[in-house]
């Protein structure tokens, strides 16, 4: 990228508000989690809190520090920043399940508004794997292979806009592939896996493209290092996405009841498969139940209390 003189000041100028916003959101998350984890509260898993804090670290590493300073004029640093903000942070945010936390921690009226928002048409479209996958992949290709994209990366102001864009697009994509928060119209495992596969392929092809054909204004060394970071970094986070995705599927399709050592293991397995098929909307029902719980809570607190009882075994 063309060196931007005096970008140090603009780095601080625009990085700070974004960093402050991220910090406020993280503090709000942790505060809500602590409230839920108090004795008598509805509880909140500690690993999710860790994921939220790590997500904040990943985002802030792209806003302040050596990567942030280098990101506007060095393609390798730029790539590392985009990897952290566009892939790593989104996965951590999705695993932290901020939507579920908000629904559980908010008062009845805001929770109802939030659940209505989550069910609205635009949100449903934005978190559809096909939409999110296309948005994510297309913006990546536009940025690195067209003159339009080159113009964007040279501009220090748009550098921040791009970082935020990739954080949002990354979150939408990851949430559509690994839906942890309640989503009333969850896509099938097959569709999510297919979209992931295509996006991962496009990612690795683009990495090699950058490696072989340096974008205008970058040196060959920079482009090769940047391409390698994109390729292997993408693989690493992609592997993590797959593990989370399959772990959730593995748990959701677990055999219910005792099977091991059963005389007719296969027959029992079949029976359980059928049970499971009848119960396949289990997670979805639970998610909607949570939403309904928030809705009913406005008039009487029965919905919310019912949800509380569900939580405590």
């Amino acid at each position: 990228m063309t060196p931007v003189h005096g970008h140090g000041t603009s780095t601080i100028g625009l990085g700070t508000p974004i960093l402050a916003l991220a910090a406020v959101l993280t503090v709000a998350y942790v505060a809500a989690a602590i409230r839920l984890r108090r004795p008598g509260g509805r509880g909140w898993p500690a690993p999710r809190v860790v994921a939220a804090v790590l997500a904040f670290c990943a985002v802030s590493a792209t806003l302040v520090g050596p990567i942030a300073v280098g990101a506007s004029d060095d393609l390798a640093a730029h790539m590392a920043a985009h990897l952290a903000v566009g892939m790593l942070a989104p996965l951590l945010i999705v695993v932290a399940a901020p939507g579920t936390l908000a629904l559980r921690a908010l008062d009845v009226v805001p929770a109802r508004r939030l659940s209505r928002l989550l069910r609205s048409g635009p949100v449903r479209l934005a978190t559809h794997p096909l939409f999110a996958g296309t948005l994510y992949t297309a913006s990546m290709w536009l940025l690195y292979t067209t003159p339009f994209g080159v113009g964007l990366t040279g501009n220090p102001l748009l550098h921040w806009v791009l970082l935020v864009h990739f954080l949002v697009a990354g979150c939408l994509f990851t949430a559509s592939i690994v839906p942890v928060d309640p989503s009333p119209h969850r896509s099938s495992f097959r569709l999510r896996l297919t979209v992931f596969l295509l996006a991962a392929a496009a990612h690795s092809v683009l990495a090699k493209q950058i490696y072989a054909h340096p974008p205008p204004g970058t040196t060959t060394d920079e482009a090769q290092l940047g391409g390698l970071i994109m390729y292997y970094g993408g693989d690493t986070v992609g592997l993590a996405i797959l593990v989370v995705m399959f772990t959730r599927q593995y748990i959701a399709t677990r055999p219910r009841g005792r099977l091991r050592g059963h005389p007719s293991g296969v027959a029992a397995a079949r029976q359980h498969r059928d049970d499971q098929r009848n119960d396949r909307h289990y997670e979805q029902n639970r998610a909607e139940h949570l939403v309904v719980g928030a809705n009913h809570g406005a008039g009487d607190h029965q919905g919310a209390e019912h949800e509380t009882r569900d939580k405590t075994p």
Partner: protein
Amino acid sequence: MNQSVEFDHRAPAAKSYAAGLLIGIGLMAAVDEIVFHQLLGWHHFYDRDTTRVGLVSDGLLHAAELVALVAGFFLLADARRWGSSVGLFPWAGLFVGLGVFQLWDGLVNHKVLRLHQVRYDVDLLPYDLLWNGAAALLLAVGVVLTIVAVTRRRRG
């Protein structure tokens, strides 16, 4: 979670065979990447001769390998948790997977698509023979194991 693809109604033996196959493919791809690309540096990350079609096919294959490895391990875990014995099936699948990928890489990737070669600036013939010979051997072991596994199952 509806419409589970990986965890459906196939019997544990068939499921574990498929799991072995997926792990074999993913494993051989990983060995190729780690040993020949990273450690030996024989393969090139990108070859000037690589065509656009080759690049896209390589990208798709690379993504599929990653999915195959993860899907394979989870499928194997799933086959085992249903409680019945799976015998030699996962091993048979594993060797077939290893052989098939190696052979695909040696014949289609190297020779047909010409994505990259085993090694550069050397006489390729012994390398190619060794590469594809090893692939054929792995595949043969896989086929024998498959026959043994199926026969054992038939006998009960």
